[in-house]
């Protein structure tokens, strides 16, 4: 039969199944292939905290959403157009994210009596009429996988493990993607077990062929390449981007990179990535705890490396005292916080932006630390690079905020020319003549970086209050106040050294939506939509949270209303209100999930009526 080929501007697909069903792998394969075709895209993995949650349960469902298109894509998609559900639990958990009229591809074999019961279905939803507002396609994925592998004589376990490739094959057919990149990947990935290479490729092809021959699918779709600016691209997750940004900063500065880190979700991938790159002389130290992670990094910075520690919210809390030490010592240090749902252990695998106040204020006494935030997965590269630049130039710890959504999410990244990245030019003090540990550079107010091993510069530093210039321990009241103000002034001065904030849309008007971090995509999409409807709304997204850029105040006063969407109870809005005395409208969401653009659009509508 001939099937119609329809052109789509953008599509969102969600793969969902048991955490052991390989949905993350399936999603990632679909993503790389789609990226190779030149679509713009954004992804959102959504997986349980349990490594292998009991099969068939609601809390064991693992999902991967990809939004791709021929236009600019800023978010993983508010709702999905296609839901691939490998079992009833996956259907139940994800149905609410499927748009009305959307396509469900259900693995009929997964809807056994036992699985239906585990998911809490009294009757089988793919057989009763409950899904009638969707286009439901039930496919015997497990059975068809068995058929495809019949002759190979493999164990049932191995056969059933490859069924995700059947689903992937079907999706490749439906969205006119080539199988070759995945076939190549399978060869590489399973090269040690040739029978898996054979099995997975067969199943992938069987899925594709099923799409071709079955009569249940009436149409297939094509999505033209996006008009991204010319250049070379790759797909990159936020955590990889942080690791590479740090390596790039190491190369550009000529400083060795030292990472002291304790594994924690969702930041561990930065440790994994950096531990691979020994030929960049990266030293990764898996510390015994979060405190050793940061204090070892401080020790390394003292020795002349770029000390970095990576963590998530609970770990940041544990590092608090050591951050204060770094403030006192005035040594460069980068602290990456890949935020997750909290408080306490909270929602380890879910995203949130609720560590902002912890980052800005969370230390004993007056301990100012510059805070910067990445806004998209690929932007993590630039943000990490910038964190190192500031840390080294101002001899200060810097907190870099990312979040679980950015860390695990991926998007196409236009690969920069390595040679064109800006230089970072740190200086080690070598001249003993006139050396004092706490003398200061007039412009940056930073103290000299004097390394052990340098003849003639022997000196002592520590956490006790320092006397101005000499660095000797001092309990003098006036000196203490002077030094507290000096450390603050040094951080404030960074505002002189960063580009001004730039507004998307008109520079003045009815409404400014101001955000920070991983909400960039949702806010930008919402603002674009509203602007295309003729609304007077602009977007400002902050990279620098401490200090703010110098022009932020004047931007805020150029709009009648200010909306601050955040994945918390109003942390940036609190900072803005405190500093600029403006009436910022907070709009929060704390569900462990990113904003949907439509949520922000409704809020914009509300404020503009």
């Amino acid at each position: 039969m001939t099937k119609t080929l329809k052109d789509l501007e953008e599509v969102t697909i969600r793969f969902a199944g048991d955490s052991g069903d390989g949905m993350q792998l399936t999603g990632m394969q679909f993503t790389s292939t789609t990226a190779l075709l030149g679509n713009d895209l954004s992804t959102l993995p959504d997986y349980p905290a349990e490594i292998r949650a009991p099969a068939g349960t609601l809390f064991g469902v693992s999902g991967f959403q990809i939004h791709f298109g021929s236009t600019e894509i800023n978010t993983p998609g508010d709702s999905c157009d296609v839901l691939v559900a490998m079992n009833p639990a996956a259907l139940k958990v994800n149905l609410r994210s499927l748009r009305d009229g959307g396509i469900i591809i259900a693995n009929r074999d997964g809807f056994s009596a036992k699985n239906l019961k585990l998911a809490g279905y009294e009757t089988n939803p793919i057989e009763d009429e409950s899904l009638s507002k969707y286009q439901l396609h039930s496919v015997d994925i497990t059975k068809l996988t068995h058929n495809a592998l019949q002759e190979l004589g493999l164990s049932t376990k191995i056969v059933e493990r490859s069924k995700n490739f059947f689903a992937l094959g079907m999706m490749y057919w439906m969205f006119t993607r080539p199988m070759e990149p995945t076939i190549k990947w399978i060869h590489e990935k399973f090269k040690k077990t040739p029978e898996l290479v054979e099995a997975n490729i067969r199943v992938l092809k069987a899925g594709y062929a099923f799409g071709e021959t079955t009569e249940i699918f009436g149409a297939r779709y094509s999505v033209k390449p996006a008009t991204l600016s010319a250049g070379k691209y790759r797909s990159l997750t936020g955590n990889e981007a942080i690791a590479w940004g740090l390596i790039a900063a190491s190369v550009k500065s000529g400083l060795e990179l030292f990472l002291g880190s304790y594994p924690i979700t969702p930041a561990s991938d930065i440790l994994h990535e950096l531990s691979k790159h020994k030929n960049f002389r990266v030293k990764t130290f898996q510390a015994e705890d979060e405190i050793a992670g940061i204090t070892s990094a401080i020790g390394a910075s003292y020795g002349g490396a770029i000390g970095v520690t990576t963590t998530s919210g609970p770990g940041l809390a544990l590092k608090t005292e050591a951050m204060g030490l770094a403030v006192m010592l005035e040594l460069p240090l980068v602290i990456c916080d890949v935020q997750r749902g909290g408080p306490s252990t909270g929602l380890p695998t879910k995203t949130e932006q609720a560590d902002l106040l912890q980052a800005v204020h969370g230390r004993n006494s007056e301990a100012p630390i510059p805070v910067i935030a990445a806004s998209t997965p690929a932007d993590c590269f630039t943000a990490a690079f910038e964190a190192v630049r500031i840390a080294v130039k101002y001899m200060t710890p810097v907190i870099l905020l990312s979040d679980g959504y950015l860390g695990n999410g991926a998007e196409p990244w236009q690969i920069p020319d390595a040679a064109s990245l800006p230089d970072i030019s740190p200086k080690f003090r070598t001249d003993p003549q006139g050396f004092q540990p706490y003398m200061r550079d007039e412009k940056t107010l930073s103290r000299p970086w004097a390394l052990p091993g340098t003849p003639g510069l022997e000196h002592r530093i520590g956490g006790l209050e320092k006397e101005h210039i000499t660095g000797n321990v001092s309990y003098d009241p006036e000196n203490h106040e002077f030094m507290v103000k000096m450390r603050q002034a040094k951080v404030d001065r960074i505002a002189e050294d960063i580009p001004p904030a730039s507004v998307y849309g008109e520079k003045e008007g009815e409404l400014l939506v101001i955000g920070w971090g991983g909400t960039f995509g949702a806010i930008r999409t919402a603002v674009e939509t509203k602007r295309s409807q003729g609304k007077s709304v602009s977007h400002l997204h902050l990279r620098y949270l401490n200090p703010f850029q110098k022009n932020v105040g004047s931007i805020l006063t150029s709009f009648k209303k200010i909306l601050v969407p955040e994945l918390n109870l109003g942390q940036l809005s609190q900072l803005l209100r405190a500093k600029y005395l403006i009436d910022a409208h907070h709009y929060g969401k704390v569900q462990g999930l990113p904003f949907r653009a439509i949520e922000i659009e409704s809020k914009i509508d509300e404020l503009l009526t």
Partner: protein
Amino acid sequence: MNLLIDEILKKSEAAPVQKYTSKDFQSDQDVRWCPGCGDYSILAQVQRVIPDLNIPRHKLVFISGIGCSSRFPYYMDTYGFHGIHGRAAAIASGLKIARPDLSVWVATGDGDGLSIGGNHLIHTCRRNIDIKILLFNNQIYGLTKGQYSPTSEFGKVTKSSPYGSVDHPFNPLLVSLGAEASFVARSLDRDPKHLQSVIRRAAEHKGTAFVEIYQNCNVFNDGAFFQFTEKETKEENVLYLEHGKPMVFGKDRDKGIKLEGFTPTVVKLGDGKHSLEDLIVHNEKDTMLSFILARMSNIETLPRPVGVVYAVQRPSYEMEMGRQIQEALQKQGEGDLEKLLNHGETWTIK
């Protein structure tokens, strides 16, 4: 890759070798320990030994946490780092890994090293990072003015334990041996010669060297170790360990330690029943023996062993890391940023 640090390393190596005296290591800071504190002696012995080690002053780093002992770096005219409570071993680990060329020392106490910083201490030992840890054990919290510490004896009456402490104490030697330290020793503040020899041995050891130093706090715990340090009693109560020598002690060197099964017991030499041949011969490389010796501290009727309890060689952490980096450099060549950013799957948009 052009490393900025190379310039420092070059200068560091090129500096003319000097002959130092102990005075060269005295900083210009006023020493602020209580008069009569055992810390003075430890400082003096370190300053006496260091000139003999042929380590240039600019390559020495003393790192500490918080507590009386942790003031130590201020008084050494070397590089010094007064950290935060308990974290000296972790700070030192990061420094030594980043800079294997430096000689890194940690000054800590029973509270700093075994209570708040216990975790870092044990993990440093097992990793065998090449740092020297001097743990000043005075069995009391001095700087906070007299609470019991993790090495205070059970039942000890202090400000925070008016009815006697119900905490069972740590045995620092057993902690470090249990944590897989490759060098474990004990010495005493009031035995300068012995302390110097132990510090020298620790300095020469390649790997984590853990040294417990009995230190008198004359304000809050005066005399805690007098039976091991005072002339009248020490010979009868201390067993000086010497590698390859039988374990003899006593004022008249008339007693020895013999193993009955796994239990060390005191025997009288020349009583017609026992001779030198019956005694344990100290072997620093014997793991089992090291635990027995460390355990002796818990048995009141036995003399207290001091000296090098255990010393074996195994690769240090930072050497292993350096080896992996060298291997990666040989195999893959110097890291190329352009290559890194462009490796794997990429696509071009025209």
